[in-house]
């Protein structure tokens, strides 16, 4: 079977890989490029643990073929921190203990970042609807929502 040669950009870095056509972007991120931050929860687009952005648009990397990454700009959770400096969302997730097992966390972080880039001052309802496609079986969501709201406030420069 012929493999496709794909040229793409991941977290700002030009990246190339070879892949078979049936592989998803998630398969290649994890197994080929060893970017294992994106998680495989359901493989059917229901859980959001594999969330990445493609040209700034939030998607499930399990619902996209890896060959479709050609020419695109992809952001994963690995691109959120700057060196050892965590992104404000990551810092607030730690402060609020907004995770327990942590499996959903990378997807929630990527999705929350995409939200705050569009809407720096979301209401709680807007946060909950935006994150409806990110399932968390541990926290009950309240801590996640509080962490996102707090990170949004900090990123706006608002005083708590």
């Amino acid at each position: 079977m012929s493999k496709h040669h794909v040229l793409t950009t991941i977290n700002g870095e030009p990246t190339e890989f070879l892949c078979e056509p049936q592989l998803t972007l998630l398969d290649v991120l994890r197994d080929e490029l060893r970017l294992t931050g994106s998680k495989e929860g359901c493989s059917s687009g229901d859980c959001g643990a594999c969330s990445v952005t493609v040209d700034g648009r939030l998607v499930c990397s399990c619902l996209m073929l890896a060959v479709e990454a050609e020419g695109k700009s992809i952001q994963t959770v690995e691109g959120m921190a700057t060196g050892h400096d965590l992104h404000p969302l990551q810092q607030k997730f730690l402060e609020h203990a907004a995770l327990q097992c942590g499996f959903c966390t990378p997807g929630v972080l990527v999705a929350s970042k995409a939200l705050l880039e569009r809407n720096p001052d979301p209401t709680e309802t807007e946060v909950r609807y935006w994150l409806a496609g990110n399932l968390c079986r541990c926290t009950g969501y309240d801590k996640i929502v509080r962490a996102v709201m707090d990170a949004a406030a900090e990123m706006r420069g608002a005083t708590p």
Partner: protein
Amino acid sequence: MSALAYTAPSSVEEAVRALAGASGLAKVLSGGTDLLVQLRSGRTRPSLIVDTKKIPGISGIREENGAFVIGAATPGAVIGENEALARAWPGLVEATNLIGSTQVQGRASLAGNLCNASPAADSVPALIAARAICVVVGGNGKREVPVESICTGPGRTSLARDEFIIEFRLPKRAPRSADAYLRFIPRTEMDIAVVGAAVNLTRDAAGVITDARVVLGAVAPTAVIVADAASALTGRKLDDAALGSLDKAARAACKPISDKRGTIEYRIKVAGVMARRAATIAYERAGKSQ
């Protein structure tokens, strides 16, 4: 799926040739939010995937002679962000944005929702109520067909193997027109319709409905145009009597199945309620739009 091939043609002609020349099953890929799930589960085993997204014009929204044209592969999120479209067709936009999560909206398209041919597809009743036309391309050239002629049953369409949809054309909006779509699900997000109802109508300056179209989803093998419901509304104001006739006509048009989402009796009852509520919203919206 060991012999799967993928191609992303940059023209309609190339895509049609690829579809016609496939040795086995060929599948058209737009957003992929249904297709990739079916690939993974083994429900579909194509030998070729034809990704249409590199065809010019297949993604994006434009206005032509005062009417909207929506590219077949335009993601739901892009449709939701178009304010002019949402002003003219609020029901179609709200129906489209009900499909899946934020992540799914980043990819899911109208053509995919239609050609997946689920009886519960959210955008399909709204497209039909809007009298949207599909521009279909294939080996025999281009043809324009109403959206309601595409689905022939669950998972089945009337498209030939070398055909696909390139765009949806909405009619020009008359003054005081609006649409609405409501979906009943047991929670608030991320679910599949138990019943969907789309109503598109036009009223005159006195509030009399001059034109109406009522379409139900998830109550039959394909979306149902309820002609009796439309005639129950036309020529009257939306008073209790009109709503009562609408409810009755909507219930009479249902041929649902019982499944885990609802029984036959429940779906029929809810269809009448959803139709009434959607009509009320569309009527109020039409009164505000000039």
